[in-house]
């Protein structure tokens, strides 16, 4: 049955993705060493991390080639993680500020 054997990507795509993962990791490492302004460094590092994550999930984990049903089932719940971070991280900041006010 032809439909059971799903599209495969071929070695070339994997090697290309692999190469870009190396390049992105190298750049993240050097950006860290560069003594940039913290905000700039943070934006660049998060952007690189998301690009790496995207490459791994889309190509290595094949999510790009799965049915849209599955893609949404996996990706949409991750919004809750952003909500978790948005809800809890400010707490850490307020804890720090209250310590400073007491002193």
């Amino acid at each position, binding site marked *: 049955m032809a439909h059971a054997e799903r599209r495969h990507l071929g070695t070339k795509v994997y090697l290309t993705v692999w190469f870009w993962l*190396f390049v992105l*990791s190298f750049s993240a490492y050097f950006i860290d060493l560069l003594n940039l302004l913290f905000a700039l460094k943070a934006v660049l590092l998060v952007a690189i991390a998301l690009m790496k994550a995207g490459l791994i999930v889309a190509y*290595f984990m094949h999510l790009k080639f*799965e*049915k849209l049903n599955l893609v949404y089932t996996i990706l949409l719940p991750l919004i809750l993680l952003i909500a*978790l*971070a948005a809800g809890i991280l400010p707490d850490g*900041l307020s804890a720090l500020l209250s310590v400073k006010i007491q002193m």
Partner: protein
Amino acid sequence: MKVTMQSEPQTIPLEEVLKSDWGGGKSPFAVSWGKLMMWLFILSDAFIFGSFLVGYGTLRLSSEKWPETEKVFALHLFGHEVPLLLIAIMTFVLISSSGWMALAVNAAYNRDKSRTVLFLALTCLFGLIFVGCQAYEWWKLINEGLRPWFAPEHPPFDGVKSFGACFFTLTGFHGMHVLSGVIYLAVIALRVAKGVYDRKGSYEAVEIAGLYWHFVDLVWVFIFTFFYLF
């Protein structure tokens, strides 16, 4: 006077429902149950690591000082102190193992038994190197006096106790995942070598194991970024 606001309720004909993905008799996700379950497991695991990272972020934000990771994880090499060298090596080792895994999945698609085993073995090897580096890192920091509940007063730790807690929790859970992954992949490689999947007529088990392995790599991307580089 009577105002009728009645509009015909939109009913979807039964045939349309039955023809849809969710009407029964079809596989809405178009993947095998094994792969779907692995994806759902990965999703739940993503929440575990997400929670750890958010917890770490909160502790770090609430801490006045935080050790400079560039100094904590520096390696002395030829009389120079190279910042974060071990972590950079570990990152490249893990990405390499992920690459080998992708090639193993590719070989499994082509039902190339010997190559699948070879690439799986390389994946395991690189995974073990990663765990070895991590063990060295733990050994080094424990020797320097860092504990999950305690940090030495001297630099670079400056007595920031939550640093030890975050470090051992994050890297410990991730390292356990890598170690379990190595065992998992070794079992799969053994089964490939024994011809189990040839008899079954499907090499999908390799692909499912690959999903897990790539996820472990994915988690490291975020630990590397948020714990080590920030």
